């Protein structure tokens, strides 16, 4: 096992454990079921897909003050790390004030894909009355790279504008020189 694989294992293992614990807990004791679904179509940089989340109260009593938050993790082999959602999503968490027995709360989680690679996204629900948060399934998706800057737009402006200014000032200089000489 090389270093990259070891790092990948160290990062992914707690996530898998958390998922397993969350699922077991949801199946066993927790009255909360949480799920997230990703878009079906292939994704590329610059896309703005919406992930659909749902939180279900499968218990017998009303839940209140639930906090649902989104986690994004980069799964690029050898460079696995949690991703700061800043710039990826304006909505990072929602609060569900009340959720009655059998009720389902659905949320849209719009994201802007600003980096290429392999990523995973999951939802975590924190119930203030429970010690164990509930984690959803992990949705894994690939973002294809796409050059977003067009050299055919930038180069003419980058070269043309300074030259145009230079020409203008040159003409002005010649004009004023001829006028006062």
């Amino acid at each position: 096992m090389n270093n990259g694989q070891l790092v990948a294992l160290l990062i992914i293992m707690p996530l898998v454990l958390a998922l397993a614990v969350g699922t077991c807990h949801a199946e066993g004791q927790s009255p909360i079921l949480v799920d997230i679904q990703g878009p079906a179509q292939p994704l590329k940089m610059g896309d703005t897909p919406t992930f659909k989340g749902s939180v279900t109260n499968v218990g017998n009593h009303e839940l209140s003050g639930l906090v649902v938050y989104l986690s994004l993790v980069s799964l690029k082999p050898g460079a696995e790390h949690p991703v700061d959602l800043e710039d990826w999503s304006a909505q990072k968490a929602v609060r569900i004030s009340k959720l009655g027995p059998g009720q389902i709360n659905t949320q849209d989680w719009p994201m802007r894909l600003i980096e290429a690679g392999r990523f995973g996204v999951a939802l975590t629900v924190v119930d203030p009355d429970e010690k164990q948060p509930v984690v959803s399934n992990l949705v894994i998706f690939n973002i294809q790279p796409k050059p977003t800057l067009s050299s055919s737009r930038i180069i003419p402006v980058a070269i043309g504008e300074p030259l145009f200014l230079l020409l203008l000032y040159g003409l002005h200089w010649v004009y004023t020189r001829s006028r006062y000489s």
Partner: protein
Amino acid sequence: MSAVGSLLRKELMEEVFSTRGAVLYLTCSAVLSIFAILLVSNTELSLLDNAQAVYMMCGIVLALGLLIAVVRGSDGFAGERERQTLELLLVAPIKGQEIALAKLGGTLIAWVLVFVLASPFVWAVGSTGQNLGPALIYLFFSGMLLTLILGGVTLALSAKTRTFKATLSIGLTLFLLAASPVILGPSLRQGSIGRLIDWVNPFAHGLNMLDSVVVDSQGISFQLLHFAILTCYAVAAVWSVNVMTRRVEL
């Protein structure tokens, strides 16, 4: 034409057609060119999200505009004093505050020129057109308010300091403090001290507003607080110019 109008016209002609103006705006255009070519020639940067690239370009434009505002503001009275042309202005039938008004008008004209030079670059970088229109609108108005703030403060200082160098040193220090969000980076700004600096720093409000509009596609309701704070600072800066230029001495 009123005395203020004549002075403003003189400022405009100096700004556009003087050697100083030529050097300033050619340099400004060259800096924007270098940055744009860097964006497109670097593999990683060329893969940047388009809105992110537009936001970065807007940040550079704001910084350039503010730098020019600091230089112009510092030169306002202190420069005239050093060139021994302030006496001529003071003997003319015009108040110190009117001179300051024309100088501040000249600084705003300088920002408009920077914006005109920068707009093609912002357009070129924003190839997908995502939030390009709002980016240009918010860049113009936030730049206008920030120019009033930094240009106003340095102009007020230049009315009382003896030399252009001294005013410029203070102005550049203020500029560096204002640009601290760029130096600190997003992660350090998330701490309590970073948030406090962001809260009191007008440049950070300008940047955060552009971030919110360009990157997060948020509407005007999210920008009202930023605008209100920038406007308060601008009013305070203009008030300080008014107070400091009531009595201008040689």
